[in-house]
């Protein structure tokens, strides 16, 4: 009988191999898609730290993504020589600072109040991005040139090559997701889950609910900012679409459809959403309608999202039964 641990490791290894050799299997167009999926997977995971683990629904989550995106774009344009890592770190820090600012107002609130106050801040930042033309160029947006990276052993790699961009994105996204995973394993991560269940009791146990939630919010903002920076790198362009209501709504749809109760739910959500979008936008321009209907069905009948259909435990039991 195969141990569950070995089974899980096996699956993980298969997925890792698949991701590593993807550029050799599929055409270039699909690598584009895969890169986008990776970015939204990271964005979704950071969103779900709040929705799934802290029990907060940030409706205006694009604020953090957008600020990261603009920070990265400004770095690329005004300080072109900066190493990519530094630029992305600054994008992430911009997300973090924005999260601290927004969070200090919002995390005291719960449920609908929290959801809509974050939306208000996002709309505010959207207006700023729209009107502050000297810096952001308004809704015309700004073009960005992907930098070269100097990798020891490989020499200068141009990110104009989509495969190189894919690997860089893969590395950063995996690191980000790993950081989120490890964060949840810390005592702080446990305290957060405790607050999702009952924050009054958590505060009686001596936890500082406000500070803890603010920390999670900021950490999520850090990851969302990094995702925003990667998105600019990927699009070679930044505009108000990175910080508008649709971006906020998109991430809500992705995470709910993927499943908020499991750690990798948002990854499934981003994958499904973007693959579906890629396929159906050839068929009809009204694809948001189908996505909306699908979303309603998931909210009403499939609370765990798509990932709840993908039950590895059941596969494992089935495999074991075959061996007997």
């Amino acid at each position, binding site marked *: 009988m195969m141990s569950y641990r070995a089974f899980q490791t096996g699956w993980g290894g298969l997925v890792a191999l698949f991701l590593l050799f993807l550029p050799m299997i599929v055409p270039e167009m699909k690598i584009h898609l895969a890169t986008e999926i990776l970015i939204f997977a990271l964005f979704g995971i950071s969103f779900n730290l709040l929705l799934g683990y802290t029990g907060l629904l940030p409706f205006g989550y694009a604020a953090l993504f957008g600020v990261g995106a603009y920070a990265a774009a400004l770095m690329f344009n005004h300080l072109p020589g900066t190493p990519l890592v530094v630029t992305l770190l600054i994008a992430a820090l911009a997300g973090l600072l924005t999260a601290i600012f927004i969070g200090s107002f919002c995390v005291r609130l719960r449920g609908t*109040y929290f959801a809509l106050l974050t939306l208000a801040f996002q709309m505010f930042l959207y207006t700023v991005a729209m009107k502050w033309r000297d810096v952001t160029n308004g809704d015309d947006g700004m073009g960005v040139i992907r930098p070269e990276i100097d990798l020891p052993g490989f020499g200068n790699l141009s990110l104009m090559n989509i495969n190189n961009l894919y690997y860089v994105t893969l590395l950063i996204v995996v690191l980000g997701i790993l950081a989120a995973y490890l964060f949840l394993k810390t005592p702080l991560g446990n305290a957060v889950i405790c607050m999702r269940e009952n924050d009054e009791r958590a505060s009686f146990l001596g936890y500082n609910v406000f500070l803890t939630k603010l920390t999670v919010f900021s950490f999520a903002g850090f990851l969302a900012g990094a995702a925003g920076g990667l998105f600019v790198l990927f699009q070679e362009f930044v505009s108000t679409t990175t910080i508008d209501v649709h971006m906020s709504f998109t991430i809500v749809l992705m995470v709910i459809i993927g499943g908020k109760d499991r750690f990798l739910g948002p990854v499934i959500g981003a994958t499904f959403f973007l693959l579906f979008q890629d396929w159906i936008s050839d068929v009809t321009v009204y694809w948001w309608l189908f996505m909306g209907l699908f979303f309603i069905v998931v909210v009403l009948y499939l609370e765990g999202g798509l990932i709840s259909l993908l039950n590895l435990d059941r596969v494992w039991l089935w495999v074991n039964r075959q061996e007997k």
Partner: protein
Amino acid sequence: MTVSIYVIQAMHGLVYGMLLFLVASGLTLVFGMMGVLNLAHAAFYMLGAYFAYTVTVHLGNFWLSLIVAPLMVGVLGVLIERFLLRKAHKGGHVAELLLTFGVFYVLTECVRLIWGSNPLPVPVPPILTGDIPFMGMTYPIYRLFILLFSAIILTGMALLLMRTRIGILVRAAVSDGEMVDALGTNVPVLFMGVFGGGAALAALAGVIAAPFLSVFPGMGLDALLDCFVVIVIGGFGSLFGAFIAALMIGELQSFGILWIPRLAMVFQFLLMVIVLIVRPTGLLGEKE
């Protein structure tokens, strides 16, 4: 001369504020009663405007749309409450919020599918076209009509809530739904009615806004954002608070555009943030 500019601008603000309150009142009533912030409300408002367009253009009668649109949207609201929202109720407020969000998206896309993405003009009915002289300047009659009409609707609503048995039940259910249920009122039916009524009110606001703002698929989202600011400032669930806040936002936008056009949109968010820092529950809201 300058005084009359300010008066005119104040009138513009008042008209927009009243319109805003007409939309926000249904939203805040449903929120106070069911604890659901109904994001689909904005889509009901938009549907009202689109029905006004279809009725006015194809049947040539704007007045008819004042009856047709609220009726149809009201029925739609009742159906959505009965068959979708009630199912989401067990999932808690977040599930309900997500559901109304999904409905908002689907309705917006349906509007795009049926009427297209381009803005559609709705002609002002002939009796109400033109301007009247006003303090040495002129003022569009249709705006005065909006003012008058919303005032009538709001008075009617206030009378309904304060003076009738249904109104008493609704107010009682807002303050303690379980107790009203225990005393023998069918609260789910009451909820369904209020939800439908709120939808009809939003549609009515959409109809009278249609000739004034023209009709386009983004109007729902615009209204949602403004209404949301209104009910946050006024205090969730408080009708009178929403009234004050709607007039404040109306005037703020009107004078903001006059003085600092580039930042007009920023003002209302600043006002909201200030209110939330000073009084986190809004001007007249009770504690969550």
